[in-house]
């Protein structure tokens, strides 16, 4: 099967997920008016949001995997999401409340946090040439721990209600999103994905390594900074609005690579669609598994992602990606 046919198949599945998922879990409600309200005011914005956030997280994960040439490198494993979380937690803690062009200040705080984290990881990985992927991941883990303990500190110092707000949000959830959140998220994720679609050849070259990329005429450094910027923007916006939903950026691009190959011309759109559909499915599970109550979607993705991470770690021991 050609990559274009496979992509079409993924598109069909995604559309099916988008159409079916809003109606799951509606049958218990008898009053049609309430049903209608739930569907249009809660369900549909939530599913739209899940799609956009899932697509953004998956595509950012894919970019990290290509840039660092490592299937385990994602905004989460490298501490970028923790940086974003710290930024947003600080925003809550310090009692800031502002918005620029109707975009909430926490988004900017999270964006700054992720940009700082990624600059940190990247400059450490540049210190020595021949930097092994294990060291890179350990750097990410160290940065994650560091930021996480700062978040704990902030939580400890906060009053009960702020502290609970931070904790609940750190679990990653889509419970309370509305149309406004969709509109907050959409521009950031669209810009990021747009740039990444535009750079599909460049991503292929980055995956071949700096030496080959440079000798094929790619301005590696410039491309990398641009990618850092747009992925930080995207991860920052997502984390600020729905907390760090982990592991999507690792699982989805990896599965897509197995399905469609590693040419980013096909891989990027496939990852985008699959990532969106995947988060909707996880969120639907989170919604239904202990209905009428629900659990944060981040719990589901992390439960799936942990074993997947271990499987990758064992499998990738003897291949360099």
């Amino acid at each position: 099967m050609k990559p274009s046919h496979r992509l079409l198949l993924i598109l069909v599945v995604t559309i099916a997920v988008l159409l079916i998922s809003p109606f799951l879990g509606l049958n218990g409600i008898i009053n049609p008016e309430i049903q209608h309200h739930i569907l249009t005011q809660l369900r549909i914005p939530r599913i739209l949001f899940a799609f956009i956030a899932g697509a953004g997280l998956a595509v950012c994960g894919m970019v990290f995997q290509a840039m660092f040439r490592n299937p385990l490198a994602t905004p989460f494993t490298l501490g970028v999401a923790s940086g974003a979380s710290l930024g947003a937690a600080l925003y809550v803690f310090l009692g800031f409340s502002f918005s620029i062009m109707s975009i909430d200040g926490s988004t900017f705080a999270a964006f700054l946090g992720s940009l700082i984290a990624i600059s940190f990881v990247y400059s450490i990985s540049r210190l020595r040439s021949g930097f092994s992927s294990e060291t890179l991941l350990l750097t990410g883990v160290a940065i994650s721990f560091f930021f996480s303990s700062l978040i704990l500190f902030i939580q400890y110092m906060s009053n009960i209600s702020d502290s609970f707000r931070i904790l609940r949000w750190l679990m990653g959830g889509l419970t309370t999103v509305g149309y406004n959140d969709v509109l907050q998220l959409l521009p950031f994720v669209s810009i990021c994905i747009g740039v990444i679609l535009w750079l599909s050849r460049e991503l292929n070259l980055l995956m071949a390594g700096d030496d080959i990329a440079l000798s094929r005429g790619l301005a590696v450094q410039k491309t990398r900074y641009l990618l850092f910027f747009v992925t930080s923007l995207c991860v920052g916006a997502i984390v600020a609005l729905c907390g760090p939903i982990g592991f999507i950026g690792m699982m989805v691009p990896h599965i897509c690579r197995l399905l469609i190959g590693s040419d980013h011309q096909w891989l990027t759109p496939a990852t985008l669609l699959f990532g969106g559909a995947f988060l909707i499915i996880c969120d639907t599970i989170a919604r239904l598994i202990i209905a009428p109550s629900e659990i944060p979607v981040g719990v589901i993705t992390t439960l799936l992602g942990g074993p997947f991470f271990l499987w990758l770690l064992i499998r990738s021991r003897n291949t360099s990606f």
Partner: protein
Amino acid sequence: MNGILTVKKLGVEVAGKTLLSDINFEVDRGDYLCILGPNGAGKSTLLKALMGINKTSSGEITLNQQPLSQLSQKLRAQHISYVPQAHGRQLNFSVADFIKMGRFPYQSAFSDWTLADKQAMDRAIEITNINDFLTRQMPSLSGGEAQRVMIAAALCQQTPLLLLDEPTSFLDPHHQVEVHHLIRQLNQQHNISIIEVSHDLNHAAHHSEHILALKHGKTLWYGPSAELLQADHLQALYDQQFVFTAHPQTGAMVALPCELSSEMS
């Protein structure tokens, strides 16, 4: 001063350490330059400086009378292509996808795959004779096959100058001969200038035109290849004595390293 590539007083420093200093040479159209030297002499560093992978700290590299530093990376890739030291099999691409990337210097975002792209790729495939394994994955290739694919990808760039970093070091004798035959063919039939880093003295002496011998980041010797095979040159370069004999088949002079024990006598 008519060379397509002129290197003048080139110096390279990495992290405060001088890796190359005062390197001078020139490569004309259709020239074949071999860079020899012991391990750590700066041979690969020199190729990477020409390719823009290592930054130069002093001196000047000019390409067709134009300073290389003024060219964009893309423009540079239209003039110089590069086959790095063996790692083709670590790349997770299909052969066809990898070769395609050689057309990057001529493409812009969202531009279509043009007829010129297709022709360049077909020609590179034909010259390197890799048609049989286009659909295979790079990690599944043998060392010799992978090297031909790496050369094909560089040929897609259609550059007048090709740099190769120890293209045969990890190959068995049969594939060494095969890859060297291919490089000579590119040089003689397709008029591509070659700069090759090598450890194969006899190949360098007989098949290249000029030799640049590096030691400790400096030029030890630079001249026509025919003058390389002399005891004092080789002794100075490698700190190793050599004996010379005629190749029984071709009659050409070949150098053989002496046994360590015979140095005593």
